[in-house]
């Protein structure tokens, strides 16, 4: 009955993921599996909540989907529970998603925490980022797949072209880039890393013990004589932020290379003796050839790069879920 009704109603699919200070969003309107419209947005948290609410008012059939990028998830090349026991994974604390030839697991705690953190959005579907690679995989054996985003990097290695054998995820260290204006920072405390960051922040605040600093600030304000000065200050600030971004990118690249190197080492040591033959890297925004060369030098593989639309994939997965 619902399927019949579904034939006539329009569904709004909203896929999003959070970067350090904003939400990257894609809104698709779908009717009878045909895409009517597709729009991409970037929002701050408050705007995003408003946007979600307006979507729900506009259409009750709104589905919100995202990916969960927590560490405590991985793949096992079988759906069998005995395989999990073999690997020493406690079945009581995880949720297993059995796919055709393999399974993805995630800690129940992670899921609950994620849902609590995102409770303002009424999320319908939470997908593993490993699916983003799996849905774009090639028919080649012994292949290394890398998915690189602004906030994390994941690796899947396929010994057999059909099912992945190795998975790993890494989050880029963001402590230098945390947006200190975010009011919900307290709500984001979900890992020990976050607590450490907070302690660091408090120490920084303690450092401002001299009133001289405030005096200096006052002097700076006094120095601002004209609008030109303000503009100059702004351009200086922009330059600073650009430099910071570049530094952050280089840092991410170094961390990525280390992570890829360590993952391959882990794979050869603990999972397979077969040498990797193919390498693919999926990215969304930009990918420098220089970075690809670095990876090739580290992995001794020819790396093919491929641009993917993460939000589109998330929405496609959501559509598949709706049609199940």
């Amino acid at each position, binding site marked *: 009955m619902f399927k019949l*009704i579904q034939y006539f109603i329009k569904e709004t699919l909203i896929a999003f993921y959070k970067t350090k200070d904003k939400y990257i969003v894609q809104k698709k309107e779908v009717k009878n599996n045909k895409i009517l419209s597709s729009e991409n947005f970037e929002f701050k948290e408050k705007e995003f909540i408003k946007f979600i609410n307006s979507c729900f008012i506009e259409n*009750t*059939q709104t*589905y919100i989907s995202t990916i969960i990028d927590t560490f405590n998830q991985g793949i096992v090349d079988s759906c069998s529970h005995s395989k999990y026991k073999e690997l020493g994974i406690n079945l009581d604390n995880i949720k297993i*998603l059995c796919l055709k030839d393999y399974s993805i697991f995630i800690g129940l705690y992670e899921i609950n925490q994620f849902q609590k953190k995102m409770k303002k959005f009424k999320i319908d579907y*939470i997908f593993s980022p490993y*699916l983003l690679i799996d849905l774009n995989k090639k028919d080649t054996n012994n292949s290394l797949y890398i998915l690189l985003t602004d906030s994390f990097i994941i690796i899947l290695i396929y010994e057999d072209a059909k099912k992945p054998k190795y998975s790993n995820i890494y989050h880029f260290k963001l402590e230098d880039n945390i947006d200190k204006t975010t009011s919900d920072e307290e709500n984001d405390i979900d890992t020990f890393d976050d607590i450490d960051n907070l302690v660091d922040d408090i120490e920084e605040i303690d450092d401002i013990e001299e009133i001289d600093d405030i005096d200096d600030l006052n002097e700076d304000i006094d120095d601002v004589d004209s609008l030109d000065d303000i503009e100059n200050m702004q351009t200086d600030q922009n330059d600073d932020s650009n430099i910071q971004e570049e530094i952050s990118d280089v840092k991410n690249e170094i961390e990525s290379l280390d992570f890829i190197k360590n993952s391959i080492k882990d794979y050869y040591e603990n999972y397979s003796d077969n040498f990797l033959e193919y390498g693919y890297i999926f990215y969304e925004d930009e990918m420098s050839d220089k970075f690809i060369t670095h990876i090739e030098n580290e992995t001794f593989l020819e790396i093919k790069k491929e641009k993917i639309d993460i939000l589109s994939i998330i929405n496609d997965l959501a559509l598949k*879920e709706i049609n199940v």
Partner: protein
Amino acid sequence: MYSFTKANKKNIFAEDTKLWLIFIGAISSMMIFFSLFLVTKSYLYKKDIKNFKQQITQNNKQINDFSKKIEFIKKEKILYTKISVNNELLKDGVKNLLDLIPDPITLTNIKIEKNSLYIYGITPRQDVYNILLLPPLKSIFTDTKTNFYQMDNGWYSFESINILKEDK
């Protein structure tokens, strides 16, 4: 299944749309109910009209029958009155007739028909009859015939046939 979670329950309609739909539904069902009521009523009225028409036809037929009966009874009444008058007249006539009979003549039989009178009797003599009885009979009837038969004792038995012809 690709998602770690299941989708939240979705309503097909928004809350205010639901209210509107309930309202429209209630109004529609009331209208349907009312129209059904009207249809049923009109059906029953049509049925009643049909029955009444049948009844009217039957009543008309009965009225016709009664009219015929009344007419018949009226005719019977007229006939009764006529008969009664005739009887009264006959009674008077018989009384008058018997008053006409003179003492010497004895009647043995009288037969009265619609336009005729048959008298049978005994008379001592033919002239007694001819003088005392014949003249009043002649004055009443248009045609009078009398036959005499002599009896052993010398008296005469007579037969008088009197016919009254109505004017055409």
